[in-house]
């Protein structure tokens, strides 16, 4: 199963790195992609309504916890995804949301 791990935390930890997590997960072959993100202050939000382009400076919502990075993983089941997320250093100071990736119909 594929899951997106959305890594949230306040900005102060942005440059803390992953403390060996990435290396371990690469070794296990569960990581399919991902990246750390520049701070939400540099985000631009886009909406198109009635053919009109509307831009907003900043993220979806101004909350203390912001997505600081994401990882796409492919693993056996939710139990393994939870284990992988729990090992990520951000789990100890922020929050990691695990979202199953929408599979094309017929695959499940």
């Amino acid at each position, binding site marked *: *199963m594929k*899951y997106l791990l959305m890594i949230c935390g306040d900005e102060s930890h942005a440059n803390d790195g992953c403390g060996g997590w990435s290396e371990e997960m690469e070794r296990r072959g569960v990581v399919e992609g991902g990246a750390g993100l520049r701070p939400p202050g540099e985000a631009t939000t886009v909406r198109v309504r009635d053919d009109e382009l509307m831009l907003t400076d900043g993220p979806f919502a101004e909350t203390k916890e912001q997505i600081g990075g994401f990882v796409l993983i492919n693993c*056996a*089941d*939710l*139990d393994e*995804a*939870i284990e992988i997320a729990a090992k990520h250093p951000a789990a100890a100071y922020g929050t990691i949301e*695990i979202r*199953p990736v929408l599979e094309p119909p*017929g695959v*499940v």
Partner: protein
Amino acid sequence: MTFEEVYRQEWGQVVATLIRLTGDWELAEECAQEAFAAALQRWPRDGVPDKPGAWLTTTARNRAIDWLRREAVGAQKLKEVAAMTSESEPQYDVPDDRLRLMFTCCHPALAMEARVALTLRTLAGLSTAEIARAFLVPETTMSKRLTRAKQKIQYAGIPYRVPPAHLLPERTPAVLAVLYLLFNEGYSDVVRTNLSGEAIRLARLLVQLMPDEPEAGGLLALMLLHDARRATRLTADGVLVTLEEQDRTRWDHAGITEAVDLLETTLRRGAPGPYQVQAAIAACHATARTAEDTDWPQIAGLYGQLKQTPVIALNRAVAIGMADGPAIGLRLVDELAAGPLSGYHLLPATRADFFRRLGRFSEAASAYREALELAGTEAERGYLQNRLREVSAGG
């Protein structure tokens, strides 16, 4: 055995097996339902088969195959399920299936209310309407809750299995917590007693399926001990009767004996946990011939073994007070008053009780009044009002 009894006994197993075979919770439930409907038609005519469970599972499995064929869904899935027909008899009795179902229903990635509802529906076989009534929500709400939980299991990839050994220490308490919550829902409410019965039935099943898990035995013993006193907890008018004043001859002594035997066997494993300790406390009460015979020092010691939450600390203070005298109890309770228990009605109620035992009636009266202001259940309020009248009249 009546049809109702067969249903209660076999439902969980049939559903659990069908989920394993089809991987589809909705389909498993529908096919199980159809199998029981078929049995209801045929058994009175043809007689009850030797192995009703196997008959039901085979029938449900055949319905699943028919359905999969009709819908022409996933040729692969159909092949998997149909492969089962080549077995001389489908494995309806894989002992793990119901345990697998129990752990999956109680997966911590599901909301607590979803875990409880799912357990009642898939394992205990209560209808959605029955579960909705038990939790005082509209049937459509409960139906949505169940559907959502099943969807999450399927789409979020919650595995259908008994967790591997390294996960058991965190997952087993999740299962026990669901069963205990279910029991308490039924125990705290005279109208919903059937929930306690279901919880006991499921705990018995868990003990049978996890014979090496002492906390399962501890939980069952704890439930049986509480349940044995059910009939004496309230007066005919629904007013709370304290343990001290309950009519001990009306306790279910066969239930107490069963629980105490179970607890002794369980404790001999030498791996005590919170449910076993709580059961041991309940056993101290249940086996005291009179209230005066209660082994309070032992109870105080047992409370000391539990994680010291504020409520446990209050109970421990009561036990120490009963063992060493109300003045000491009062001092311990007063120490707790400043903490997170302020605003909890049992705190002034406990103080009031110690004042009453010390003969300090006016202080007792004001503490009873304070407790009454903080509400509690109707049964508790009735009790507190009676006490307030008593101490106001000079004890």
